[in-house]
């Protein structure tokens, strides 16, 4: 009887310790992820290459915890996308290529580890769009890669707001001659905004970017279309977006400047 009691007690204690250790480890991981995610967002809002690089470093260190490696690799790829976009603005093609390729490698790693996460394919599609900057000659490959990523994302999460957002941005920047333009972009951005309104990510550490970006691009699309009432709608979107994220340089400097120029 005593032996039996001792065994029971040991099992109960062990179980309690394991649960506690797990919760401790999970909280460690989640906290680190949220901190790095916050730093990444700040870096991308300010187009701050140093901050994005530091955030990328944080995610690389989180890999040491060997938990949800696919999600950590996703964020590393997202950091690379941020660095690549930064390089595009500075017209540094070598860095555009370097970070885009690194991002594609990382997101493919993430997909290998977890092929059921739609946002990974959205990011893969986005990174492949960047290849137009330096690999126009491989247009057939790029088209095939983006189409394939788009199909996978749609299949897994047909209401992913970032999927509509990326397609809307692509249409915004694609000349009408190539099947793009604001008339094509606006319906996609509208879908994105509708999806964002009701979206709730399963976990706080999952990606949730893009809402204010969708508003910013919608504003710019409306400004370009310039039908009656469009400028007023555009201003409303800009105000709502800045309210949501007052730190975003994309909104406060780029989109706002476009609005001021268009209003003249």
């Amino acid at each position, binding site marked *: 009887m005593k032996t039996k009691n001792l065994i029971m007690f040991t099992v109960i204690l062990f179980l309690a310790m394991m649960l506690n250790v797990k919760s*401790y480890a999970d*909280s*460690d991981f989640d*906290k680190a992820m949220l*901190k790095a995610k916050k730093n990444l967002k700040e870096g991308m809002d300010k187009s701050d290459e140093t901050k994005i690089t530091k955030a990328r*470093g944080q995610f690389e*260190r989180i890999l040491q915890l060997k938990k949800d490696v696919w999600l950590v690799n996703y964020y590393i790829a997202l950091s690379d996308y941020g660095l690549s976009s930064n390089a595009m603005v500075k*017209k540094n093609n070598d860095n555009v290529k370097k970070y885009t390729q690194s991002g594609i490698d990382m997101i493919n790693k993430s997909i290998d580890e977890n092929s059921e996460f739609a946002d990974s394919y959205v990011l893969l599609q986005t990174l492949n769009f960047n290849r137009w900057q330096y690999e126009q000659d491989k247009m057939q490959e790029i*088209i095939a890669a983006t189409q394939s990523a788009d199909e996978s994302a749609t299949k897994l999460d047909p209401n992913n707001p970032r999927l509509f957002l990326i397609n809307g941005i692509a249409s915004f920047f694609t000349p*009408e001659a190539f099947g793009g333009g604001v008339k094509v972009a606006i319906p996609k951005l509208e879908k994105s905004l509708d999806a964002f309104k009701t979206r709730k990510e399963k976990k706080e550490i999952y990606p949730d970017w893009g809402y204010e970006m969708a508003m910013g691009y919608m504003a710019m699309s409306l400004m370009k279309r310039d039908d009656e009432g469009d400028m007023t709608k555009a201003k409303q979107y800009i105000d709502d977006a800045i309210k949501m994220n007052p730190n975003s340089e994309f909104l406060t400097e780029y989109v706002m400047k476009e609005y001021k120029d268009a209003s003249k």
Partner: protein
Amino acid sequence: MKYFLILAIIILYALKSFSQGTDSTQSKTSTDSSESNAIINVISGFVKGDKEKVLKGANVVIKGTIDGATTDEKGYYEFETEEKGNVTLIFTLSDYKDKSVQIEIIPDKNMNIDVQLIKKEVSTDEILVTASSFTSGSNTAVTLTPLEIVRIPGADADLYRALTTFPGSNQVSEGSRITVRGGNPNEVLTILDQASLYNPFLFDETFNVSSYSTVNPWGLKGINFTSGGFSAKFGNVLSAVLDLKSYDMPQATGMFAWLGLANASLDGTYISKDRKYGGSFSLGKLFLEPYFAVNGKNSEYSPIPQSNQVGGTLAHKIGSTGNIKFYANYSDDKVGIYNAGPTYEGFFNSNSKNIFTNMKVMVAPSSSTLLNAGVSFSSYERGTGYGILNTKTTELYSKGRVDFTKNVTSKIDINTGIEYEYNGYKFDGTVPEFSYNLNLDAPAFEISSDESSGRAGVYIESQIKFSKKIFVIPGIRSDYQTLSENVSFDPRLSFGYMPARNNSIRGAVGIYHQNPKIDYFLRTPDNDLKPENAVHYILGYEYNNDNKLIFRVEGFYKDYSDLVLFNRRDLYYRSEGKGFAKGVDVFFKTKIANKFTGWISYSYLDSKRKQYEAQNLFPSSYDITNTMSLVGSYNLSDQIVFGATLKFSTGKPYTPVVSSVFNSKQGVYIPIYAETNSGRFPNYSRVDINAQYIFALFGRFAVAVVALNNLLNQNNIYDYTYNADYSKRSEIVTNNKRTIYMGLGLQF
């Protein structure tokens, strides 16, 4: 009961802790000041690369933890940690090798750890690009892309014409047939997905009409043009190989229509939603009436040049890596062009029909093996008529081939294969007894012949990477021809060495054989003709900075033997000829951002042959001593591209007529020729420009092209003709005078 109660309480406590995990104040992140009493140490230092170069953005972390930092602009890092004892610091940075450093953290003792990272060597497939190769594809040193092909002014979106802007190759009569390093046009072999493409041209060998190829560059995922020293995979070819690989499956669904001043085409591709089935079709027609209305005619035609083309593919994906593809193409052409010769004035009539089919299968039996098999068939009929000359030839080819690749280790690949090719040749018609007399009353033969031959070939080669800097490709092949019952052995060796990043030295040496054309066997006793033989020696240097800047210089020497030679004693063709070709090719290409692409190529060539009717070592028919091309393409904007091409070459050899003798029996003059190829045409030069404009039409992608060929209206010479007694010589200028071409393409 008691234990269950305790168990429940403990589980509830644990669950509470778990759900509050994200709010836990217990942290191991270095940037947070911990409220615990643990001792915090600071670890800092500098991270540098080669030559003390500071490395910004390098990551450092204690293995198994998230304690670490990223270096700043000065390469400096600093972080806090509660870890103690023996730990491993891991340093990482993209493009650099990871570095691990073992340290012992002693409480209350801060540490300074400086490290140097070593750059990773770029390991790519470029190193396996062999000597004399110009390539296009995703895994090779790309020197020519489909986009560049369609943009080269003067190339008319033709792959072969585009290749002649690279060193070592020249156009035949400004058409798509090419000669390489002084060799004859039939010494260049085109392979499409393992099938031999013997007649991929329209208006081939037609008097003063430039030929065009039937190969669509947009359907190609890989182009490898080797002007010498090519792999043991390729047999029965003496000079050069153009190895083309088409896409296994169409990349997207869509159609593209083209309407130009001289032609129209419609292309379509389809791929199923699951990407397992795909197909394509292509229709094309040439009509020159609008073109002549705008540019005028430089010759008299009846009929004017016309051609039709239809083709398509069907493809099916087998499993995750395999593929089966069927390809078929039909083309025909017809033209009559007026010429005034010494013995006959009239229309040179030519027509041809070409059918080509190919089925190829690719499977990967394992992750380290690849099997390719293919069966192809082609039929080429050609009719020619001028004066008394009136002939029809039919050439049939069929080929079966299997290639197997095994990746033995990460450094060694083995390729091996076997093929059988059937070649049928039929000739019917009236041939003048004397080549100089084409009068309708001239003495002539009626000839009808039918001959065929088979060739079996087998090869094995290995690609060995001794290190990231050195590779060798030794190989050997053997071929047997049924007609002559000759066996040939061709050992070959290629090598590459990268002494430093972006720099490579490549060379090749090997034996190459090619069977003479069947019509020579018809004038040989007992089919006693050996395969023509060439030994290639090639050595070159290349600097390639990620395809943004390419500089290449290459020297070559080719030693020919057993060339077909007309024996004047017994009037048969025999394998008694010989020759050589030597020279230097120089190539320089640059890309500046996405704005400008341009290249310069130059070739020096000295080529002599004792072959066919040339009884001594005379300049070969395509011994063009100096050839230069300058090509430039400028993106004015995303929608407008301008291009210009300048081509220059010294004169091509020809055999002058020095006098004549009257033959009273025939009533014509017999020309007396100088030494074979002792004369040279004047220098050749030509400038072409074009512009492309991309825009939207009916909401679809559209492209408009305007091209001005032979901008300076140079009167380049095609040949000479003579009056009846050969006392006066007249120039036959090419029909490619200054012309304008316009076209519009629409995608839908």
